[in-house]
């Protein structure tokens, strides 16, 4: 099955900074999602982005399907952005999602 690697594993930034999180896939995927897990454990869906670029406020994501990676950009970070960010990919069929290990983002005031 596919393998998903996320980097960096941990990221500590000051409020207002920008950040880039990366997700690499071992094989092609046709479903790719980014999630933010908040302190209560909820998985908040950020983007469904199997290819191309999307933006939502301070967040944007780009997936280059042919090179099997995706990037999540967070601009002007706020303390509420803290948490763990997961990417997950799926392939044909029922498209179960395979998750990466996550990037733990800490935004300090």
């Amino acid at each position, binding site marked *: 099955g596919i393998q998903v690697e996320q980097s960096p594993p941990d990221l500590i930034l000051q409020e207002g900074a920008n950040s880039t999180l990366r997700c690499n896939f071992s094989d092609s995927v046709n*479903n790719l*999602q980014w*999630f933010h897990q908040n302190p209560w454990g909820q998985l908040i*869906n950020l983007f*469904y982005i199997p290819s191309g670029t999307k933006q939502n406020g301070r967040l944007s994501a780009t997936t280059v399907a042919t090179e099997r990676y995706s990037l999540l950009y967070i601009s002007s970070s706020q303390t509420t952005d803290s948490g763990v960010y*997961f990417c997950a990919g799926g392939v044909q069929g029922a*498209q179960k999602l*395979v998750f990466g*290990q996550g990037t733990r983002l800490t935004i300090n005031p």
Partner: protein
Amino acid sequence: EPEVTQTPSHQVTQMGQEVILRCVPISNHLYFYWYRQILGQKVEFLVSFYNNEISEKSEIFDDQFSVERPDGSNFTLKIRSTKLEDSAMYFCASRGDWGGQPQHFGDGTRLSIL
């Protein structure tokens, strides 16, 4: 916006007891999933369900686990005889039956086995 709802939010059970976790997927969705996340680890796929049968399951999903769609709205995960290592957050997800759709996740049930 329609949501996937899970109950209970937290379940505490004695080892060896049976537990049923409940999910109400989004109403017009046809693919259903269970995932679990052991504390501090990544989210892992357990099982997918389509057209009233299991379409795929992971090696975690052994004979102690079962899923059921008892009516038109609920989707349940049963663990027959719980073990300490079953303690985790369990997430239900659903997806529409048309191409290019994301999976929508519920808020999870935190299962604690004593």
